[in-house]
């Protein structure tokens, strides 16, 4: 169940951050794109959380898992809970940095694509079915986000500087994408996708004329429930409605 939650929560929290762009993206096409990707990820999280609830066998459904757990019970990587901007929301950016969002989106999409490909062979048929469905979607996400990374990285001096700055912020958190152990037959250790992820990321950075920062010793542990200071704020927003109106449904 923990393995499924680590994947489910990473999709869920990533979607929550992408969804914060709704109505704020630089162009309307991108507004649709970011929210469409968020929607796909929420769909994946729903399926995974439902499955996690079934594995747990305690009668918790997707809503209870998504909205009624405490911070330490979430198993997403810290990378996806970081705000959409490293700067303060009061600096005029509204707390949104498209460079950071785009880079993170590409990093997570490549990672999910690699994991889902491996999960096609899972001995857990439900997990394999979810992966088959989700794989088609994250391929679009990866393609879309990568195009933007190249366009902005290999763009103007301003866009490149901002991408490079965002990369410096995110890079230490990437380590966690390879931290969680696997479950025999059910799902691969995240480490198993590291080499391929780094190869693809390297190619993308080259295309985008971005240089990789030095590797960091930071080892965040969101997948073990140890989160950053941002997680509580994110959950306050995300859980508000369900906490205010317990049991509320559409």
């Amino acid at each position, binding site marked *: 169940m923990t393995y499924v939650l680590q994947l489910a929560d990473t999709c869920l929290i990533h979607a929550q951050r992408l969804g914060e762009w709704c109505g704020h993206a630089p162009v309307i096409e991108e507004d649709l794109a970011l929210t469409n990707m968020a929607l796909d990820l929420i769909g*994946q999280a729903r399926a995974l959380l439902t499955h996690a609830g079934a594995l747990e066998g305690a009668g918790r459904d997707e809503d209870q898992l998504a909205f009624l757990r405490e911070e330490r019970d979430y198993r997403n990587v810290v990378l996806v809970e970081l705000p959409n901007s490293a700067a303060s929301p009061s600096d005029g950016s509204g707390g949104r940095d498209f460079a950071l969002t785009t880079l993170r989106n590409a990093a997570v999409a490549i990672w999910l694509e690699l994991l889902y490909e491996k999960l096609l062979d899972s001995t857990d048929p439900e997990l394999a079915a979810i992966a088959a469905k989700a794989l088609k979607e994250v391929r679009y996400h990866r393609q879309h986000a990568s195009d933007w990374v190249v366009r902005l990285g290999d763009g103007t001096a301003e866009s490149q500087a901002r991408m490079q700055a965002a990369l410096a912020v995110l890079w230490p958190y990437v380590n966690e994408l390879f931290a969680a152990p696997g479950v025999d037959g059910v799902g691969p250790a995240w480490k198993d996708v590291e080499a391929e992820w780094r190869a693809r990321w390297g190619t993308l950075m080259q295309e985008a004329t971005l240089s990789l920062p030095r590797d960091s010793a930071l080892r965040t542990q969101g997948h073990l429930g140890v989160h950053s200071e941002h997680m509580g704020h994110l959950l306050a927003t995300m859980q508000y409605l369900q906490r205010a109106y317990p049991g509320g449904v559409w």
Partner: protein
Amino acid sequence: MVNLEAARARLASLPDPEIPAVTLVELGIVRDLRETGAGLEVVLTPTYSGCPATELIADDVRAALAEFGPVTVTLQRSPAWTTDWISAEGREKLQRYGIVPPQCSAEQAIRFVPQLRCPRCAGGRTEQLSRFGSTPCKSTWRCIECGEPFEYFKSI
């Protein structure tokens, strides 16, 4: 004894809630209609994991078949839905409705950006504005010749 033929015909008449020009059966969302001990069972497959229409579709199906007795709707995820399952008739209707149907198989879908013809003026000079659109299944395009935007049902 349920009149399966009549139920099947009723099911085949149900439009997609978001793209009413085509039916659910034409889109390939309906996997199966069968009789069980407890009434009718309809097996549906979601198009995209997060497609918000999925629940609406299940409600529509239940309501439409209610006259035939108790109805269970089952969601089946595997094998994953693909645009390859959209029927020829469905494709034609999409085109007439102004949504260009998928132009390649799901396998080719990601790298391949097709050269589309504008569904309004048939102009051949078109460009993709975004890989995403007003619903998860579509992307947004523009015709350079007539200037009109249009949508493309992307292969998946």
